[in-house]
């Protein structure tokens, strides 16, 4: 790297030659004013505010876009510079309304700050221009007031370069130039048009003036608030942001630059906080008395629960009890829940909804590679040469990761998308393999067939790191592109093209989600992904890997902390005598070495009355689990049901006792994101009414059961976790404070692990190829149910909508359950766009609004699973034998007019 010496304001600095004057000045702590600059964007120099004097140059130069040269002499605050900046500010002011008195941006506005700093006279020499009068309030989440716009173009760049959406542009010319945003014209019903605003708010969060502002009813001044850094409670990306709080109320969310999301957020992260203070919140413990919920004291509620636990255990044995933990709750709370079930109930019947999303990942990757988690990190996206995105609608389910992939593709990386729908990413892909739902194994085998035939596999890597490659060849040899094309309904050439794109580059990464896992052979689908990556040497290297995108904020952590029926925290088997002994000593009770039942089996047990009592924390199986009718029967059959939640969910409606918990904003703790990064959450507001954090409630229950639970703070719980969980052993709150850390981290001098298997597959010795034959879904279309239903998530809602339904703008954006259907299929059933229809499977019926779209194949339909009485009325509870994940992604349905 070439270093050059630059003199700025009589100080010398030596820096890399490719840096700019602005960056050089920053090294010297010299502040140069900017409007349009952002270190994540290509500099444009459009606002001119950063001009400086460079010795020998004819004009003033823009510091943000001028590279340093050796021997350069720069003055950042000389008289000509100050005069020029004043001129710019005066011109801006002449076309900016004098509304600081009422503008909500006041106190956080660069124009205001610089005008003060540079002594701008509000009645300056220029006549008032007021040329821009455009006001756009069509978006539900923010407004654009072009009168206040200074046309710096930052929003245009952020939308194009960072969010990679391109919804914002300049319109008209000369004095009439203004920012214009392509908005969705009708209620979107979940349709994401390309190049149309997705309301991520990244432009709003970065507007230097008051032109782009969030819609808000809260009145606050920027100097009246406090800011608390925490972790987003929605998807598994684990975005870092600050909650802006006034009078114990969250009034705005500000993203944090650097770290996981580097300042980007999605619509839910930026605008989805209003559920915290929603009037629907549960406020007091409730006990069902004569069919009605009655407010009671915490003592009464907890005493009843403890009494019922003891009674049920005495009468029916420990295995008649079960607990459902929560991927929404913190690591500490998941730890306490599994401890309560194991030590308090005396059974391993503890599970959570990872069973419905990534159980097959945990099972499939642990047995082939050694660890069931994302191998690589989010920041490594920026080094990948080819992405294979399979069964993941990334831009809607993990929007920030989706944007990062788009950024990389824009820079020239290849993208292969494999999905039954033409999702947003498919539109910019080199190849889109629009496969029939449930045919992942066939397509993977087809890709491997081509890679093998063309000699594109990495034989050195295979010899050194893996076993059973020969067995794999035996199986994949039958999967010719011709055969696979037929099974999957894609073209032979596309298979060949995709195989080459994936195998020929240096760094190829697989990103996958529910499209791979939620099948009755889900574990095999996952293993197929492992085969493909191993064959090409794409595991154990930076920017490669097998990357399961975890759906919920802490689903990784809930698994890590042992909210699973077969393992203690840190994936330590309950059947291992030594491990059992370790936990018995730590917890001071005898523990069961019998593997507990998984969530779907628990539901069967409940409907057979083999399980009598269930304690559900922060889960909503009445909406999230397959075959709602079956779940309802199971839960109503219980003798006693405890539900601990923040809202009265469909599941809570069936409870005997409801315990009101707090939201993420009202408690401390840690979440583990999809890339294994353990990040802090911090209390920003005091709990409302009579609500309590989940960890406190669980501690109280444990104490009442006579267990040792002397936790004064949630940090005490975390310290107990690290003492018992080797992969978390090196963590403490202090070390996690800044940017979090990634497991495994075995000791407190270990830096954490950016990507797994850099030293080979030490846990298993060698990675294992698992030859897998294609087996279709359990239920296929037939005469009575002729259509294939596949399910998924949308951008505007999260999981069972418990939170997003209480954010008015999100609710309005996607108010109805919908079904996506191709034009031909719609014609066949004579149904129209926006008409409501009845969709039925062998298990139930659901009502949905028709969306005719060209993004889905004939004979296939799609529904989101967020809605109660929606897709999961229809889905098939057929289970994967290995990990018990249900086949949520494929079932057979029919459509009738309402």
């Amino acid at each position, binding site marked *: 790297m070439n270093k050059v010496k630059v003199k700025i304001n009589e100080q010398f600095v030596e820096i890399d030659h490719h840096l700019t004057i602005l960056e050089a000045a920053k090294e010297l702590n010299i502040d140069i004013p900017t409007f349009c600059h952002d270190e994540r964007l290509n500099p444009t120099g459009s606002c001119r505010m950063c001009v400086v004097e460079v010795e020998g140059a004819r004009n003033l130069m823009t510091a943000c876009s001028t590279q340093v040269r050796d021997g350069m002499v720069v003055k950042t605050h000389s008289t000509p510079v100050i005069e020029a900046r004043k001129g710019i500010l005066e011109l801006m002011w002449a076309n900016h309304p004098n509304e600081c008195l009422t503008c909500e941006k006041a106190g956080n506005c660069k124009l205001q700050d610089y005008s003060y700093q540079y002594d701008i006279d509000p009645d300056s020499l220029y006549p008032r221009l007021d040329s821009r009068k455009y006001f756009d309030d069509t978006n539900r989440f923010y407004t654009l007031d072009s009168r206040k716009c200074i046309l710096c173009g930052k929003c245009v760049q952020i939308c194009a370069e960072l969010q990679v959406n*391109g919804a914002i*542009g*300049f*319109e*008209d010319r000369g004095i009439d130039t203004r920012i*214009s945003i*392509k908005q969705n014209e009708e209620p979107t019903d979940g349709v994401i048009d390309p190049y149309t605003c997705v309301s991520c708010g990244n432009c709003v969060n970065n507007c230097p003036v008051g032109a782009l502002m969030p819609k808000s009813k809260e009145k606050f001044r920027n100097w009246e608030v406090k800011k608390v850094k925490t972790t987003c409670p929605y998807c598994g990306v684990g975005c870092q942001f600050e909650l802006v709080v006034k009078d114990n109320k969250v009034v705005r969310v500000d993203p944090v630059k650097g770290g996981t999301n580097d300042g980007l957020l999605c619509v839910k992260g930026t605008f989805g906080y209003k559920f915290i203070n929603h009037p629907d919140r549960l406020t007091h413990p409730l006990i069902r008395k004569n069919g009605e919920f009655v407010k009671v004291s915490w003592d009464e509620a907890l005493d009843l629960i403890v009494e019922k636990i003891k009674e049920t255990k005495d009468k029916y044995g420990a295995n008649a009890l079960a607990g459902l933990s929560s991927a929404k709750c913190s690591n500490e709370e998941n730890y306490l829940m599994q401890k309560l079930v194991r030590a308090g109930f005396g059974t391993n019947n503890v599970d959570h909804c990872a069973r419905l999303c990534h159980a097959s990942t945990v099972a499939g990757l642990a047995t082939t590679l050694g660890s069931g988690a994302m191998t690589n990190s989010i920041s490594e996206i920026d080094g990948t040469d080819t992405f294979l995105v399979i069964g993941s609608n990334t831009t809607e389910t993990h929007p920030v990761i989706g944007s990062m992939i788009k950024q990389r593709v824009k820079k020239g990386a290849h993208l292969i998308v494999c999905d039954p729908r033409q999702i947003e990413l498919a*539109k*910019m892909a080199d190849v889109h393999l629009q496969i029939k739902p449930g045919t992942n194994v066939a397509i993977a085998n087809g890709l491997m067939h081509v890679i093998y035939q063309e000699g594109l596999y990495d034989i050195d890597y295979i010899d050194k790191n893996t076993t059973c490659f020969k067995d794999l060849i035996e199986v994949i040899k039958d999967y010719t592109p011709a055969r696979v094309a037929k099974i999957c309904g894609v073209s032979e050439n596309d298979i060949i093209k995709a195989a080459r794109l994936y195998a020929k580059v240096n760094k190829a990464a697989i990103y996958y989600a529910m499209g791979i896992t939620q099948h009755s052979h889900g574990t095999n689908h996952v293993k197929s992904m492992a085969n493909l990556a191993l064959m090409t040497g794409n595991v154990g290297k930076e920017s490669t890997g097998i990357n399961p995108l975890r759906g919920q904020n802490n689903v990784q952590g809930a698994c890590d902390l042992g909210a699973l029926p077969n393992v203690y925290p840190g994936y330590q088997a309950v059947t291992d005598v030594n491990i059992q002994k370790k936990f018995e000593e730590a917890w001071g009770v005898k523990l069961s070495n019998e593997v507990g039942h998984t969530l779907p089996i628990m539901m069967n047990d409940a409907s057979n009355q083999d399980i009598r009592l269930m304690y559900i924390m922060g889960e909503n199986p009445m909406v999230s689990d397959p075959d709602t009718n079956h779940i309802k029967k199971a839960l109503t059959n219980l003798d006693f049901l405890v539900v601990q939640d923040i809202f009265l969910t469909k599941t809570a409606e069936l409870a005997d006792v409801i315990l009101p918990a707090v939201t993420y904003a009202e408690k401390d703790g840690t979440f583990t994101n999809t890339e294994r990064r353990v990040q802090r959450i911090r209390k920003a507001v005091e709990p409302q009414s009579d609500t309590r954090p989940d960890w406190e409630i669980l501690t109280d229950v444990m104490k009442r059961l006579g267990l040792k639970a002397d936790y004064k703070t949630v940090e005490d719980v975390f310290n107990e976790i690290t003492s018992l969980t080797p992969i978390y052993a090196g963590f403490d709150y202090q070390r996690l404070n800044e940017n979090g850390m990634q497991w495994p981290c075995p000791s407190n001098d270990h830096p954490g692990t950016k990507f797994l298997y850099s030293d080979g597959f030490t846990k298993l010795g060698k990675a294992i190829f698992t030859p897998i034959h294609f087996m279709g879904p359990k239920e296929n279309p037939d005469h009575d149910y002729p259509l294939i239903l596949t399910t998924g998530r949308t951008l505007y809602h999260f999981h069972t909508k418990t939170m997003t339904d209480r954010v008015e703008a999100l609710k309005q954006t996607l108010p109805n359950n919908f079904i996506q259907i191709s034009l031909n299929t719609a014609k066949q059933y004579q149904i129209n766009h926006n008409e409501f229809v009845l969709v039925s499977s062998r298990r139930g019926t659901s009502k949905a609004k028709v969306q005719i779209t060209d993004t889905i194949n004939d004979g296939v339909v799609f529904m989101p699973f967020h809605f109660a009485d929606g897709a999961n009325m229809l889905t098939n509870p057929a289970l994967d034998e290995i990990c018990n994940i249900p086949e949520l992604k494929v079932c057979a349905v029919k459509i009738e007019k309402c």
Partner: protein
Amino acid sequence: MNEIITTKKMKELDECIERNKMKKGPLMPTLQDAQRIFGCVPKEVQEHIGKKLNESYAKIKGVVSFYTMFSTKPKGKHIVGVCTGTACYVKGAQKLVDKVCEVLKIPYGETTKDGLFTIAPTRCVGNCGEAPVVMIDEDQYGRVTIDQIEEILNKYK
């Protein structure tokens, strides 16, 4: 809008797009083609071009609204342009503009109700020696005086 956008015209546009795709910057020639085919580039056409060229609507709208040669509403059958470049301006072009507006009974930049004429804002046409210059479609008239305006326009009625 239905008369402006017909299947036949759309087909012609698609053929142009296919041809332009080979070029390095396909957007400008495509927009020019669209302007020629439809007589304007309405929103629907912009969106269609965006889809075909994988270009953002925001950018296309920016280009269309930037250049005066594009319009989003249909223009008249004949385009009347009074050059307001420096030379013509000095030679009294503004008076000619006023006269054209008076005769056609429409403001500057608008189209007559019968769809026959549009007064297009026009900068230097490169024929300053003949200033002031009036252009109607591809025809140029030099050293025009106010009295001639009505006569010239009548030729196109």
